[in-house]
């Protein structure tokens, strides 16, 4: 492969980026830049991270977290996208419920977890509930903002052919907003992962990466394991994100083609 071809390969480039960061962190660690040698060396963490990949107990935990993640995100998308479309296309309704939305949005889901436990004794339900609560906002907001961006001429075209508001919504507003909704879903995906782990961590008594961290925190040398588990949370984030990106690229070719992507 020539240098140019290498530059065009996202995987190679991404790996190079990660490797650079790791090397820098290792060097900084060895040089003692991270204060009183309190932080495990990058190489130690990498070793732990690799070790975890073969740890059956941990893999079960990952599976538990990802189950909650996918169910939670699915529910969020299924409920929020239609809701966002509704609110975005009915300004009066939106104005009515906006105070409520704006009031609920900043209430930290982390603080709600102890209360949510009382309502959702089952851990999976609990995780799905807090995921929903936290990750519906990016989808909702992006859907509503995206709807405002729809070309009015496109909407008028369909209206003039006698299509009703619903058809316009379905055939023009939704497809033309879709790329932006997808960004919202991608954001929500990250948040959902965070909430799944946080719920496991704070509510305890569960399976998942968060539960693994609780166990690791029982030991003075648990820190390495905690960081390694955190790294895995990040890796899962990268993997899920690239799945989303792949899907978006396939679905929204028209979007890329019409835009002047990078000068």
């Amino acid at each position, binding site marked *: 492969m020539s240098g140019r071809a290498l530059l065009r390969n996202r995987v190679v480039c*991404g790996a190079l980026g990660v490797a650079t960061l790791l090397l820098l962190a290792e060097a900084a660690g060895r040089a003692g830049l991270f*204060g009183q040698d309190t932080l495990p060396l990058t190489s130690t963490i990498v070793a732990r991270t690799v070790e975890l990949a073969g740890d059956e107990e941990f893999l079960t935990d990952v599976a538990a977290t990802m189950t909650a993640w996918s169910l939670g995100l699915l529910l969020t998308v299924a409920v929020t996208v239609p809701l966002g479309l509704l609110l975005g296309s009915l300004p009066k309704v939106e104005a009515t419920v906006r105070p409520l939305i704006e*009031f609920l949005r900043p209430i*930290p889901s*982390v*603080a709600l977890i102890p209360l949510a436990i009382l309502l959702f004794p089952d851990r999976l339900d609990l995780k799905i509930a807090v995921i929903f609560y936290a990750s519906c906002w990016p989808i909702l*907001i992006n859907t509503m903002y995206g709807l405002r961006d729809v070309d009015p001429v496109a909407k008028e075209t369909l209206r003039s052919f006698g299509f009703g508001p619903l058809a316009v919504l379905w055939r023009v507003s939704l497809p033309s907003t879709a790329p932006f909704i997808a960004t919202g879903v*991608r954001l929500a995906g*990250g948040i959902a992962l965070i909430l799944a782990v946080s719920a496991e961590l704070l509510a305890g008594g569960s399976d998942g990466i968060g539960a693994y961290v609780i166990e690791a925190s029982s030991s003075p040398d648990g820190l390495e394991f905690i960081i390694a588990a955190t790294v895995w949370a990040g890796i899962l984030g990268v993997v899920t994100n690239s799945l989303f990106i792949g899907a978006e690229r396939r679905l929204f070719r028209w979007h890329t083609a019409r835009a002047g992507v*990078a000068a």
Partner: protein
Amino acid sequence: MKSPAHAAPRSTPSSPGFLTRLWPILLVLVLWEVVTRVAANGFFPPPSTIVVRMREMWLTGPAAHLWLSDAALDNFPPSLARLFTGWILAGIVGVVFGLLLGRSVVLARFVDPLVHFGRAIPPPMLLPLLIPLMSIGTPMQLTTIVFGVVWPVLLNTVEGARYVDRQHVETARVFGFTRGQRLWRVILPSATPKIFAGLRLSLSLALILMVVSELVGSTNGIGFQLRESERAFDPPGLWGSLVVLGLLGYVLNLAFFTVERRVLSWHRAAKQTT
């Protein structure tokens, strides 16, 4: 960016329509009161109890302090300072890097995995990394906030900067706009609607992260108080903090909304169908 003077907002927060729009909140309050009274669960106190507790906690001070109690004066200002500093920092970082990544495909290829890696790390789990790197207190809290809220701005800015109408980009190139002009005059304005969506999301997130950052290793703040109420098994106090967060979020969003309407008035008018 200039905003057209004649495209004034249709209804400002002070217009009478604003008050009438608050009825859903009243409705919810009444429902809440009824349901909690019927359920009679100590963890879910009725709003009336919460209000009394809130008064007791925060509004028992002297008139000279606007009746704010010491607890309020000790906890609210530092929280707000953290919130705004964190949000503004995150906004700047998000927009700057978003524009960079949005316009440079090669750079984006290198950094993408790192960005999404960072995005997936739960901010509470950052702690073990942050404690040795910086001192507990404001620097760590700011880092937590910035780290937690930068992503919506970053991702939306990338999106907005990457997908600028081809015709606009080509026009700018043909007329020999300098890099700076292209960025400042074309890409940024055309991305603003999306950037604003990101900023709006991150404003509420900043409030949340402010709380998260105050849960551990802090000595004051709304999150600190929330944690204290939680530890002391004081549900009305806990709910009081939640209500304050909600109110704060509501007010902040209102202010943000007003600014946004001004900045984006071109957008609204240009995309209006009659």
